């Protein structure tokens, strides 16, 4: 949905305008952004459209309004117009054909493809064939990178989204202890709060403990939280909680993932267990961080960025335990957005 109370008038146009300024600065006629149902955050960020099925391209000309080129039926164009800033909607079975026609209408000029390496090769090759001689360049991850610095309305939406994810995790812990029942309660809480998409991972960590992890999307913004439910004392739970607290303490502007890993290593060393800790920007949560490059992984946290901290411990029986929360980086510290008063301890 597109609610002016959440996304003020002019906000989406401002985001598109920033991209268009970049295009004009680079002498590009348009940018094309590829999305599928798994990875559509850039398109959602610019237009509020929800790519709920299949694939789509967003075409952003250097001047003028963006256009959505999609495989989704024309029958749902009214819904797309009602829930996004888009007016130009084009549907067809072949995205390269749609893009070729669109670019052809624009006239001459270079075209930039956002995250070109991730585009299906076939679409790129068909587009090159449809536009012989046209300069087609890789724009890299400039939209995703821009999303790592949330505007004030975005920060507010992220706080709302994270609060919802936190409540979903807590609701999972409150009631009958079977994992499907936990998943059902988390799903209900998140959906009733307005989440568009929810992934609930409930899995036994050991006979003594379970993990409940929720990753949910609210108005296109993803946040995550995970809790370990101890059924009785475990040797690893204490060190894991201590390590998680150390990781939280390490979060802050300018901090790298390496520093967070160093903070965790000491408390977990006595367990002798394998572990992984990750700090994932909210813009990368929809893909579980899977679209990040090696350079992304080494980058320091930005001030006011919103990130998920995730600590996973490998247990002797082959299962794992996960603790996670979403934080807003504020100078040398980070505020947790997924915990409330009665959920103060990571265990």
């Amino acid at each position, binding site marked *: 949905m597109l609610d002016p109370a959440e996304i003020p008038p002019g906000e989406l146009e401002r985001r598109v305008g920033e991209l268009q300024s970049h295009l004009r600065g680079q002498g590009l006629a348009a940018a094309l952004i590829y999305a599928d149902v*798994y990875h559509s955050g850039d398109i959602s960020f610019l237009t509020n459209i929800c790519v709920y099925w299949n694939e789509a391209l967003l075409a952003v000309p250097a001047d003028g309004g963006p256009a959505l080129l999609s495989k989704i039926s024309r*029958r749902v164009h009214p819904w797309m117009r009602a829930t996004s800033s888009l007016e130009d909607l084009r549907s067809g079975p072949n995205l390269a054909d749609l893009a070729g026609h669109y670019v052809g209408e624009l006239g001459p000029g270079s075209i930039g493809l956002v995250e070109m*390496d991730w585009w*299906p090769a076939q679409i790129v090759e068909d587009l090159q064939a449809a536009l012989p001689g046209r300069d087609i360049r890789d724009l890299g991850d400039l939209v995703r990178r821009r999303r790592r610095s949330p505007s004030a309305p975005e920060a507010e939406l992220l706080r709302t989204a994270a609060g919802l994810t936190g409540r979903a995790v807590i609701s999972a812990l409150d009631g009958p202890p079977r994992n499907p029942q936990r998943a*059902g309660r988390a799903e209900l809480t998140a*959906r009733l709060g307005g989440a568009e998409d*929810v992934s609930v991972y409930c899995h036994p960590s050991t006979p003594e403990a379970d993990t409940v992890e929720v990753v949910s999307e609210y108005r296109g913004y993803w946040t995550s939280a995970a809790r370990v439910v101890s059924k009785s004392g475990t040797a690893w739970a204490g060190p894991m909680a201590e390590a998680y607290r150390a990781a939280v303490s390490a979060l802050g502007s300018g901090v790298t993932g390496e520093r967070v890993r160093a903070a965790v290593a000491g408390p977990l060393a006595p367990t002798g267990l394998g572990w992984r800790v990750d700090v994932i920007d909210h813009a990368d949560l929809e893909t*579980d961080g899977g679209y990040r490059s*090696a350079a992304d992984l080494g980058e320091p946290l930005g001030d006011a960025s919103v990130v998920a901290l995730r600590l996973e411990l490998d247990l002797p029986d082959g299962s794992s335990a996960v603790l996670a929360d979403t934080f807003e980086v504020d100078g040398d510290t980070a505020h947790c957005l997924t915990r409330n008063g009665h959920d103060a301890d990571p265990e």
Partner: protein
Amino acid sequence: MSEDVGARVQRIRDAMEQAQLDAVLAYAPGWRRENVRYLTGAALRGAFALAYLPARGRAAAFVGNVADEQAVRQAGWVPDVRVVAFPDVRDVAARIRADLPGGGRVGVTQLELMPRAILGSLRRDLGRAELVSATRLMDMVRLVKSAWELEQIRRAGVVCSAGWEAFVAALRPGVREYEVVAECEAELKRLGAQDNFMLFASGGGEVRGMTPPGPRQLRPGDMVRTELTPQLDGYYAQICRSAVLGEPSEGQRRSFELFNEAVQAGLDAVRAGVTAGDVARAENDVFRRNGYGEYTTSRYTRVRGHGHGLHPDEIPALLESDDTVLEENAVIIVHPNTFTPLAGYHVLGDPVVVTRGGYQPLLTTERKLFTAPV
């Protein structure tokens, strides 16, 4: 019951031999993991993964993160699993080169979705090997389900039926669309579903298709339509139903009767050996006979049903132009969902297992125009 992995692999290799392929490389982007799951048995979370099966020798898997590596190991079907970082797939190419030192023909599933960086790297590193699409080949392999697969889909069918009951129970004037979906999704998860693909529409004769749910509040007289598709242990089953808040109008009743007749006609046409087009034609003939043939076209509808299994929308598409032969133990849903002027977009459909003499239903849900009290 557990899956006979050897029989599954042999089925793929038989298809490879017919297609003169020396190996199959399954590519899984984040939203199309069905072939990699078919080969590895693993539930994956990562942005990409690959699974490799040579005509002779052991399979291998290449995944994008440690969690997926563990998932493949735990599934136990493919012991050789490695983590690769996008887009560095040199390990994949090295394994293929080792098996096919003189080059060969490698079928790539979802070649159409393979990222430019990965495909470019494979083309460079594989030299003389020819890469061809094997998407259709694997779709055809997966079309026919094993006894174990049918058991999983039947479980998903049971959850489907329960999900629809929860859906109807949530219908009342004033409730918002997403609140109905919340109650339904929660019940599906409580019953063990790990995922669900669901579309929704509410309102009157103006409704032309389904979308994700929104904040619209239901009103007396609304027809509420849904297609819900829970997944258990990788396998999806789908149900399509419509319900009316309060007493159905004459148009809604007539619409249901039309769609119910079309579903039955489609089901009556189902048996091993017929084509997807035969089933679609049987459904569409009902619309044509009743003067609504125009509404069976792509202007108003997508397909008259489809297969499902490890993906919620598999081949065959039930279209009159589709010549795919339905084999015994294929799973399809017959759903003539479309718009008509009678009551707007109407959805009704049942999934079935194709048998030699007809079909076995996968749902226990009655096929009727459901109503909810107002």
